[in-house]
């Protein structure tokens, strides 16, 4: 009988490595490859060689959070062998990063891949967190003055513990004013299959989220996760709310890319 509570592991950042594995995620692959390329170029600009394993598909999270753990495990198992060297694995998403870092150990508990999964979990990093705390990135803003709002995904905030990272990166940009929406920590209502299984509730949530973002006066928001982006941007577009979204990595690269590349 257990008597211990699950402790949130203390994050110990590695020293800045020469190489990293880049795990692009399926949503970025299909819908937002620009955000992926932006992330890769930001890493390269920091002097890091980016290895993009060709065998990458999906981390398994959609099936995992829907309860189909057999299917999630078989997909995740096919991904475990993509990272043979001890380099960090960086993920441009709190949600997929959270799957690998927080849930792989549970998913592979009592299986022969358990220690491999644990090792991969331990070296998985959300990309903005990695840029700030491992690369110690210094951003030089080259853009015109602008105002943005930010929505940090729930998984980035609570599973990966990076709620402060996005605002800190944005604060390095001299011409960018960051405005915070009311109830910033509240979910946008995406939740993967939740948006499909409970469409009306999800719609009420995203509508409130888009309204809060509009109320900041900003016409643009950035986010760490493509799920939230699809949800909030798509809702605003459909209901003609004056706010547009993009991935934070695209935004950071646009603001700082030209002079360095």
């Amino acid at each position, binding site marked *: 009988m*257990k008597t211990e*509570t699950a402790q949130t592991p203390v994050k110990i950042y590695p020293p800045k490595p020469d190489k990293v594995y880049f795990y692009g995620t399926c949503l970025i692959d299909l819908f937002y490859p620009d955000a992926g*390329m932006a992330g890769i170029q930001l890493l390269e600009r920091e002097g890091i060689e980016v290895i993009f394993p060709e065998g990458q598909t999906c981390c398994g999270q959609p099936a995992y959070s829907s309860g189909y*753990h057999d299917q999630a495990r078989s997909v995740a198992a096919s991904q475990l062998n993509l990272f043979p060297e001890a380099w960090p694995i960086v993920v441009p998403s709190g949600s997929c990063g959270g799957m690998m870092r927080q849930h792989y150990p549970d998913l592979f508990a009592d299986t022969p891949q358990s220690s491999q999964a644990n090792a991969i979990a331990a070296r998985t990093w959300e990309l903005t967190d990695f840029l700030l705390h491992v690369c110690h990135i210094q951003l030089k803003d080259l853009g015109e003055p602008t105002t943005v709002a930010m929505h940090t995904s729930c998984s980035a905030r609570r599973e990966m513990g990076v709620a402060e990272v996005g605002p800190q990166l944005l604060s390095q940009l001299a011409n960018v004013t960051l405005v915070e929406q009311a109830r910033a920590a509240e979910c946008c209502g995406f939740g993967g299959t939740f948006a499909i*299984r409970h469409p009306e509730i*999800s719609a009420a949530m995203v509508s409130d989220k888009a309204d809060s973002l509009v109320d900041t006066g900003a016409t643009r928001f950035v986010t760490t996760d493509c799920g939230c982006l699809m949800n909030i941007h798509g809702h605003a*577009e*459909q209901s003609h709310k004056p706010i547009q979204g993009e991935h934070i990595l695209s935004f950071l690269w646009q603001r700082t890319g030209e002079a360095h590349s």
Partner: protein
Amino acid sequence: MTTDTAVRDFHPRAHAALNNPQIRANFRKAMDGLMSKRQQAFEGWALDTLREQGAKARLRALAKLPELLEQLETQLTANGIQVHWAESPDEACRIIREICEARGAKSVIKGKSMVSEEMHLNAYLEAHGIEALESDLGEYIVQMAEETPSHIIMPAIHKNTGEISELMHHKTGTQRSQDVEYLTASARQQLREKFMRADVGLSGVNFAVAETGTLCLVENEGNGRMTTTVPPCHIAVTGIEKVVEKLEDITPLLALLPRSATGQHITTYVNMISGPRQPEERDGPEAVHLVLLDNGRSDIYQDDELLDTLRCIRCGACMNHCPVYTRVGGHTYGTTYPGPIGKILMPHLIGLDEGRHLPSASSLCGACGEVCPVKIPIPKLLVRLRREAVDGDQLHPSQMSGHGVKRQRFEVMIWQSWAWLNQHPRLYRLATRITTRLRKLQPHRLGAWTRYRTAPRLAPKTLHEQMSERQRGKPLAEVKR
């Protein structure tokens, strides 16, 4: 009487609640207030450490639950409190009726007890000719409105002052007023008379201390103290998981409970009940009973993961912080316990087949787990119940009553195809490449998604393609940024 079998109508009720501006406004306002009060109440506290202490006290108790329950019975009996065990809600109702009948009791005044709601005790007693009157103000309002509690701590939170005033006017003749003080005083006056006449007082229990045989009960209105001291007989009813080992375990739990629940540093009343009136004492009931209800809890106890559900101290913080609960309100769930804790607890009490909508009605945002004072990993348990609902893991066969209720051949086929594609990287790359080439044909309507949003647009080239072109030496400039 509202029964838990109404759970299946989750979606129609959600629809109604979402389209009811009054309900939406009442919950949003109340939950915003509760969240900010909680935050203020924990200012200056090492909250993580305190939650860790609270969790450990609960886990230690659960680790030796059978022994502690025996010790509790021994100590309570020694203190003169009569202990009754009930496996089912029906049995618990019957025990309480028999205690009443043996005393010739015709009226029961009740302090707040969610376990009595779980048993549908009021309806049962009424059906047997015993009047049951709620004395907690919120419960009193809900009873008057012939409803069920919409929140475990604030049962009438779905109503605003105007609605309450209107209700009291119709039911008791109280003058219409927006003055909360006046309405409260009026209810209090009506209740006082009932207290004086009641044959039995019935209450819940927050913590039952095994070491000392003490029942701890927190409340704000004094109705709990009156319920447990004015009538000649006091019956306490609680779930078997509410036991703690030592009196000192209450210290962290009592620091956590009111702050998490209502943002109070301490409740107005903290009752420590350790027995009936002694010969030299001037007041207190002549008889005290404790009814310990199982109702599926010992099944939860058998599973090392699900066991965490039983840590709960019923503060309601998870619902106060839940974006789904805030939108749909408590009645939408159709269960005794709504919100996140209801989603992980109710499927055990009523079976997954009845509670089939509960585990999926969450975006897994994690706000509930983040604020839980005893660190119940609620999102993880929701995923576990989803797995049970679809029999989704052959390595860990499903256990719960009603498991597999949501396993549908078509859905299984979709996930199997998804898994197959994602296990074959070459095929995945080919399929995604073809998909992006056909992007002009992408449908604008994607079921429920595009009812409220535009469809996400496929990129002209996948990241895989862009990276492979890059590796083949195409300069980056040619890759569309």
